[in-house]
């Protein structure tokens, strides 16, 4: 049923043109600024890890020490230090942390050497990312590729070992993507915690070690099942590009990575967020990671029926930023959601209209369709049914990444059995209705087509208004999610730096050079598994 709606093509063009102009405008701001986390990410790309004796990550220590130098970028003084001390990046960072080494302005005569070495190191850093990406391609080819829609579930116990147990169980039950939800408020930490963790609130800390542990668990279970199981986390919050780096190195496959979520839902400074999202996305692009944007969240604070069009306009904006950060369409998992009040007559009919619209506006994009959350009841039996209709709408409109709803959504992060039940729900509905969409056509001029075109029109008009007033102003007026944000307010504003004329960061170029392209390709799931049956 692709291209089944007769959409007004002129509106699509208007919307996209406006989004382009909006992104171009912000891109200027981006190009003129850096942030502390951007610089820390740069150091991580050099391979620096670890924390000092009071658990502050070395990259924070170094950037803090070099705070005065940031407008020129951390790379030049840091590589200069490495050269001066004859140390590796890690050793140099440890030296700084130990108070033995100190960053300093790089005098003219040492600049060329430092920059040359930095460029080399940047290429090496990017090569490490490429190697990880190649490894993913190999593994997918070897292990087998899931059938779409991907079944995406979360784990969120707070304990990475419990998470691993549950992630494996979920994969065995049919999950294709495991997202490890972060602990409440990690997004507001201005550093990335270190090491394995076993305590969290409503989620598990995103740390590089936790990434590694979960990656290993999923590789194991993927081999058992003959189906590569994807890992997802959040390049979001105050440390977007750093987490993107960690993800690129630990072979995450997906990242929640939105250009505006932090602003709207975490009250993070907007000048900062736009800058941060850029490097994080360049890294994700390079790493072959699929990003997921967060428009679904809008419909938890604003009404999904009235404000559904804001999801569409924001998808155009996120697309424009993503393309500017070198992401390929197959990597751009724009978000949308099933959040119309179930009490509304014809709720599913309207959800179909909205979902089909997004599907047709972004062909070839792995859209991420989010389940009902706001109106999920305490009655888990009934919630399971609403999730069933979400699953139906997803398969009927050709969504590719289905984040599954849990019957206990209104209660707690999922129990082991909740996930099992949800996956069974989705797998049944997907298989039982797989070919329905290709069996029917939408009535021309019917309520579905009309709703879709109305939404498109409102989105185009909103985008044109945003182009007029600028995105900062639009955010301050609460045009998305009914949430208003002060352009100068929010957390992390102190970490934004106007760059100097001689700002130097070779990663921006290196990440774009000699880019690998295309999605991993693998045989159907299970095809390459040896004799005995894995799982149950």
């Amino acid at each position: 049923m692709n291209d089944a709606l007769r959409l007004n093509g002129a509106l699509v063009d208007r919307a996209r043109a406006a989004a382009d102009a909006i992104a171009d405008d912000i891109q200027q701001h981006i190009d003129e600024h850096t942030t502390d986390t951007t610089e820390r990410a740069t150091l991580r790309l050099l391979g620096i890890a670890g924390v000092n004796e009071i658990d502050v990550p070395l990259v924070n220590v170094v950037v803090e020490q070099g705070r005065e130098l940031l407008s020129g970028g951390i790379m030049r003084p840091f590589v200069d230090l490495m050269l001066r001390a004859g140390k590796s990046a890690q050793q140099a960072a440890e030296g700084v942390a130990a108070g033995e080494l100190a960053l300093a302005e790089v005098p003219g005569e040492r600049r060329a050497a430092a920059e040359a070495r930095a460029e080399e190191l940047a290429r090496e850093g990017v090569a490490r990312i490429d190697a990880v990406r190649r490894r993913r391609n190999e593994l997918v080819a070897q292990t087998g590729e899931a059938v779409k829609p991907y079944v995406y579930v979360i784990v969120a116990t707070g304990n990475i070992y419990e998470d691993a147990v549950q992630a494996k169980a979920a994969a065995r039950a049919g999950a294709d993507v495991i997202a490890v939800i972060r602990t409440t408020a990690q997004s507001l930490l201005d550093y990335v915690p270190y090491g394995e963790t076993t305590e969290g609130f409503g989620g598990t800390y995103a740390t590089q070690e936790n990434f590694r542990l979960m990656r290993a668990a999923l590789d194991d279970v993927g081999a058992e099942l003959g189906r590569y199981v994807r890992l997802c986390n959040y390049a979001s919050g105050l440390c977007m590009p750093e987490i993107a780096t960690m993800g690129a190195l630990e072979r995450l496959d997906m990242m929640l990575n939105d250009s505006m979520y932090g602003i709207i839902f975490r009250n993070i400074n907007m000048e900062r967020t736009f800058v941060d999202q850029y490097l994080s996305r360049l890294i994700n692009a390079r790493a072959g990671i699929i990003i997921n944007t967060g428009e679904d969240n809008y419909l938890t604070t604003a009404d999904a029926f009235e404000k559904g069009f804001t999801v569409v306009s924001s998808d155009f904006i996120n697309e424009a930023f993503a393309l500017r950060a070198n992401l390929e369409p197959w990597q751009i998992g724009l978000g949308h959601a099933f959040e119309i009040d179930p009490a509304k007559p014809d709720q599913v009919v309207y959800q179909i209209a909205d979902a089909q619209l997004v599907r047709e506006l972004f062909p070839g994009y792995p859209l991420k369709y989010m389940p009902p959350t706001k109106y999920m009841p305490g009655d888990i039996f009934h919630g399971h049914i609403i999730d069933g209709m979400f699953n139906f709408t997803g398969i009927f409109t050709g969504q590719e990444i289905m984040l599954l709803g849990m019957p206990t959504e209104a209660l707690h992060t999922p129990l082991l059995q909740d996930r099992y039940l949800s996956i069974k729900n989705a797998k049944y509905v997907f298989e039982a209705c797989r070919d329905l969409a290709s069996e029917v056509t939408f009535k021309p001029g019917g309520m579905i087509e009309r709703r879709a075109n109305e939404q498109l029109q409102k989105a185009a008009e909103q985008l044109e208004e945003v182009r007029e007033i600028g995105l900062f102003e639009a955010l301050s007026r609460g045009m998305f999610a009914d949430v208003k944000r002060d352009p100068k307010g929010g957390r992390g504003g102190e970490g934004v730096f106007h760059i100097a004329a001689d700002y130097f960061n070779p990663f921006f170029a290196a990440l774009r050079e000699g880019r690998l392209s295309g999605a991993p390709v693998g045989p159907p799931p299970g095809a390459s598994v040896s004799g005995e049956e894995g799982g149950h």
Partner: protein
Amino acid sequence: MLVRPYGDTRDDGVIQFSFTLPIAYSIKAADVGKQFLERLGFHTVGIAECKAIDPEYTFYVAYGRTDSGIDPDAVKGDYLEVEEMDYYSINALIKEKLGRKLSVVGAAIESDAHTVGIDAIMNMKGFAGNYGLERYPEMDALNLGSQIPCAQLLKTALERDADAILVSQIVTQKNIHVQHLTQLIELLEAEGVRERFVIVVGGPRINNAFAKELGYDAGFGPRTTPLEVAAFLAQEVVRRHEEA
């Protein structure tokens, strides 16, 4: 070792409940549900739903935790142990060791009209890709069908000099199956022929331990395959034949 329910952390003891109390909904209703579960020994009770489903009934969905556990190794039961065999080896065993066809009569007895289960076990076409007993060349299987009075079943079994009797019981409301199953055993005993047959019962609410309690030789539960039944019958009838 004791195990406890696993919600999302080992030993958290989480259990989900739903039930209906015959009380009118009121502002206290959630606490009535909570304290009720606490009385039953659960803690950290959360009432997820508490809703009037009628002026006089309130429906609950709840979660709670228990500190109690169970040692799975301490659970000893009467589990049917049948050596796994395939279609060919079962036929071969009968032919070789019994030297004649194994005769089986089956039925859904008394008021029970559900035949799909017994058909699945006995009829040619079988179940889940598994041939039914009628297909076994070394068996002589007769399925009498539904609502067969115990007396008629016994009569037929005697006439055919059956080795085994298969009984199906699906309806269990108010324990009516216990009544029927007991009636059959009592009849066999009254007629002094209990020992002449291997007597097997099956159904979705049957298990081996329960069947043994009622005086049957074996009980088969949900998703039983004809193969399992055939293997048991062959082994058991041959064993008795050899002992005799």
